[in-house]
């Protein structure tokens, strides 16, 4: 929701980032305010997931130009765990499996780490068990998940639910959900979307990174951005997502693409 009292949560200016010397992000500008839901769409390889990982502080990506401010602070100076503690959350496209660590142990560790950082009370295993079971109801999750190893042997849908469960527990200010809809059947998608919608409020903000419009039927964005070749080439309302669904991506930004191709050709000449 767009709110006149909202504050600027995230401000990205002219962001360039590369991996192993290859530029992936080529000048991103994006402002996200509290209460807003932004969708970032685009074809594979357009840089959507890279943007998500750069925001979370993945060390494989090097920021070569530009700035990111999170609640007025320079985000680029913070280590990944400091970003998490400051209230930034990344829901992974491919959540990592950690055999040998019980999910409940992991969730409590993450929860207590964030809580203590906020000066709030940590929960002992029994208290946490009650708390997490309540949150799991939001996502229709079987309590068995607590005793299994983190994500080990989880189906794609189960992993994504586990991501949203973490979002529910950690109560981030800014959530970036990377392809949360991929690998979900329609029932699972509805459950995940319902969970996300219950977490979203006027004081937090959400960035949905997605390839398809389908998720946006259930989590309705205030803004839709289209990425191409590491840039946001078009921004619109939720109707833009519909248009992309019917017309595909080809019609957008052909000018920019052509410009880039010319540049590349020039560099090789």
């Amino acid at each position, binding site marked *: 929701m767009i709110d006149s009292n909202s504050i600027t949560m995230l401000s990205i200016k002219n962001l360039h980032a590369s991996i192993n010397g290859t530029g992936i992000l080529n000048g991103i500008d994006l402002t996200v305010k509290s209460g807003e839901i932004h969708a970032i769409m685009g074809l594979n390889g357009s840089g959507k997931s890279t943007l998500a990982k750069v925001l*979370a*502080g993945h060390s494989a990506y090097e920021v070569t130009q530009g700035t990111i401010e999170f609640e007025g602070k320079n985000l680029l100076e913070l280590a*990944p*765990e400091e970003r*998490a503690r400051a209230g930034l*959350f990344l829901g992974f496209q491919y959540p990592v499996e950690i055999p*040998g660590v019980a999910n409940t142990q*992991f969730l409590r560790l993450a929860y207590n780490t*964030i809580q203590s950082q906020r000066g709030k009370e940590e929960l002992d295993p029994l208290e946490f068990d009650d708390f997490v079971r309540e949150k799991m109801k939001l996502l229709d999750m079987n309590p068995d998940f607590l005793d299994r190893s983190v994500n080990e042997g989880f189906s794609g849908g189960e992993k994504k639910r586990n991501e949203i469960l*973490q979002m529910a527990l950690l109560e981030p200010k800014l959530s970036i959900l990377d392809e949360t809809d991929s690998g979900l059947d329609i029932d699972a998608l509805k459950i995940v979307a319902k969970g996300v919608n219950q977490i979203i409020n006027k004081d937090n903000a959400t960035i949905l990174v997605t390839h398809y419009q389908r998720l946006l039927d259930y989590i309705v964005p205030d803004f839709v951005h289209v990425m191409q070749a590491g840039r946001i080439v078009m921004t619109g309302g939720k109707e833009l997502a519909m248009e992309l669904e019917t017309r595909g991506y080809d019609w957008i930004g052909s000018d920019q693409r052509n410009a880039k191709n010319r540049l590349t050709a020039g560099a090789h000449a």
Partner: protein
Amino acid sequence: MSNKAANSGDYLQYLLNSWSAKSADKLSGLSQLRARAIDSVNTQRLPNKRDEEWRFTDISPLTQLAFPPSQQQSKVVQANDLEQFYLPETTNRLVFVDGHYAAELSTIADAPIQMIGNLPAMMRSRASTIESHLGHYAKIDGNVFSALNTAFLRDCAVIIVPKKTVIVEPIQLLFVSTQEEVSSYPRCFVIAEQDSKLTLIEDHVSITSASYITNTVAEICLAANAHVQHIRIQRDSQQAYHLANCAVSLAHASQYQSVSVSLGSKISRYNLEVQLSDENSECTIDGLTLIAGQQLSDTHTCIDHIKPHCTSHQQHKCIVDETAHAVFNGKIMVRPQAQQTNSSQSSRNLLLSNTAKVDTKPQLEIFADDVKCAHGATVGQLDSEEIFYLESRGLSKESARKLLTYAFAADIIHRIPVASLQQQLEKIVLNQMQGV
């Protein structure tokens, strides 16, 4: 140190001479065994890296450490020094201080008192059983350390579980090192008679950070249908030298499960030989090595399938940090008669630094043609994506690394059937990480 032995022969001679003063004692029934061991030591030398079995582990520093055999000292250790090692799950505990039995620190509940004790006491009632088994499993020839231990044999934890007897509570054998610059020769001897069941915890600990040598031998004999769980923890001083031999013999349909954990010592070597001597016997051999600094920990196992229809499963994991060096050599022998053998072996290794080193060598020698034998070895590092995942949930890099290291070790630790010991080991692996 006043006594230095220039070479391996001098070193062994020095040890034997320093023992001769004590060699005449009451255990005449075992003197033949000791005499044979002394003869055997006289024909052997210390192994060096040219010996195939020792190619990864240089044991030559021992020749510079002519530590005399430890003398029994009264009251060097108090009960409250040891409380940290006691396990609430067990009331039967034999304590050996620098290899010498400490009756005042040991406790045995009423029921098993006939079954558990120190060798001299047990010889009074069970001499014939002991003499017909003790020293029959651990090879003396070709194994100078086992021979030395046998030459110095005096005190020894003896457990003889009678037929159809189930000892529910684990029995703890606590071997404590307290003196510096001595060598000690702990020994254990276990007979599980037909249809009996036992859980044994062999715990090597120290209350000194000094240098010393522990040379230990364990022999475990399982009669038909016997079940033995053997948990072995080596947490000697970081300056210690720990040389261990364990020989296990399994009769028909018996089951041996072992978890050995190697944490301490500057140089440690564990040889485990398991003989599946009759049909339908089964063993599960799990190991965990967790070392750092300049430690070297070498585990050599040999699982010998002698008869058909036997099963062995082995999983060994090494976690190596800084400039430490771990060695795993896992030999599986399947003899011509041993058809329908089912055997699996896995060696997984985690290197936590660029200078850590592991040598892993699965060694399968299969002489039967109808068998199932699987083996695999991996060496890897912590996964950077896994670390990033945990960091993105607020964990520091350090905590993330510790949690993932713990996760790597967890399945081995969880096979230890004693909760308090599991927790102690989890703490060691996690290094008292907050919040878990």
